[in-house]
């Protein structure tokens, strides 16, 4: 996406983003989870918060990831509406168990890391 950054494009993107209130996140898949997404480890995504709110929860992000990023074996990543036990989640390098797990609220430009502990020894 960044390769198209001509001046005009930037202003249009900025306009759309402020208009639709898209939020930008950087997602990292590690510890073997990338294998569920064609081995792509880093995903830059734009998401729109529900009904015009300024923030978005991990619960929302997870369901988006499941629908849009995971290409195979979603059961290796999710269980119910949360991550599968054994998958660690860090929001801005902080354990999501400290921020309320699914209720963690995300802000624009947050970095979310998912690490599977279930592969290899």
């Amino acid at each position: 996406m960044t390769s198209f950054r001509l001046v005009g494009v930037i202003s249009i993107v900025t306009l759309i983003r402020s208009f639709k209130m898209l939020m930008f996140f950087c997602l990292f898949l590690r510890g073997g989870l990338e294998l569920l997404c064609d081995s792509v480890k880093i995903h830059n995504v734009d998401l729109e918060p529900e009904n015009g709110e300024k923030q978005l929860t991990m619960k929302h992000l997870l369901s988006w990831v499941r629908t849009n990023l995971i290409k195979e074996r979603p059961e290796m990543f999710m269980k119910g509406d949360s991550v599968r036990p054994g998958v660690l989640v860090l929001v801005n390098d902080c354990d999501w168990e400290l921020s309320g797990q699914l209720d963690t609220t995300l802000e624009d430009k947050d970095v979310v890391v998912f690490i599977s502990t279930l592969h290899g020894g």
Partner: protein
Amino acid sequence: MEGEAAAAKPKGRLCVICNQKRAALKRPKTLEQICRECFYAVFEEEIHRVIVDNQLFKPSERVAIGASGGKDSTVLAYVLSELNRRHNYGLDLFLLSVDEGITGYRDDSLETVKRNEIQYGLPLKVVSYKELYGWTMDEIVKLIGMKNNCTFCGVFRRQALDRGAALLKVDKLVTGHNADDIAETVLLNILRGDIARLSRCTSITTGEDGPIPRCKPFKYTYEKEIVMYAYFKKLDYFSTECIYSPNAYRGFAREFIKDLERIRPRAILDIIKSGEDFRISTSTKMPEQGNCERCGYISSQKWCKACVLLEGLNRGLPKLGIGRTRGANHETSKSIKQRNGTTDSIQSKQCGSLDF
């Protein structure tokens, strides 16, 4: 757990140890919220305590670290060389890897181990199935198919580590088995009714009567903390699954342990405690240890497990030695009846990790 945490943003939470820095993780063992620096300190200190309290090493010993390139053994190699320096253990440390001959899996993980050799300055020895047994895992799988190949993996890997350790002339072999692994093995041994293994699997040191004792400095270390440590320290490890079939039964036990951990993280230590507190009743006969008549490896039977499996491979009867007389799936054993008329159950951790 979730309710109270939901109120505050992570930014506001301070480390309960130093009360200065922002907490970075919640320790599963104690539920404390601690910062990165305090985490490194307690993580390393706890492992040091385990090593000292259990007298795992003596000064000037040669110690091989079973290195798979995965998270556990990578963190073990890093922490052990760090503690060796810091606390003057006086150990000569080596990395020992097994090359099973699995294209695209072991070659990649061996590359990781080779980088670790340079990063941590530890000499590396690689022993391969091909040179030890004349067969690679790829060749074995071609012959026997995807079923049961983990039997070969487990038996061969265990023996390969011992042979590599003998070549390195080490006094001890350490493996990266963590608390989650041990809790899982306790559970599996209960599910299989394997009392002999149940009492053995929680020992921090095993094989003291054999040629090379093995020990598990991570016995009380949670997998979550190992992975967090590797992540924060940016340690270089390899995390792809083995392409050959994992052990489904063990997979269920693993999932169960992880589910329990989510509800009550202490469960992992409690299961280990339960395993430790089981004592073998006198009615359970422990197999006598002898040596394999063919290769001399330690064995309670006439031939060791690897020789039985190899015999099958070389005679074109690869099913020889596979299957068990006890256990989950009461399938009739096709194994040759051995000296004492029973066959031992062969089980292995899933590929890519080291066996007990």
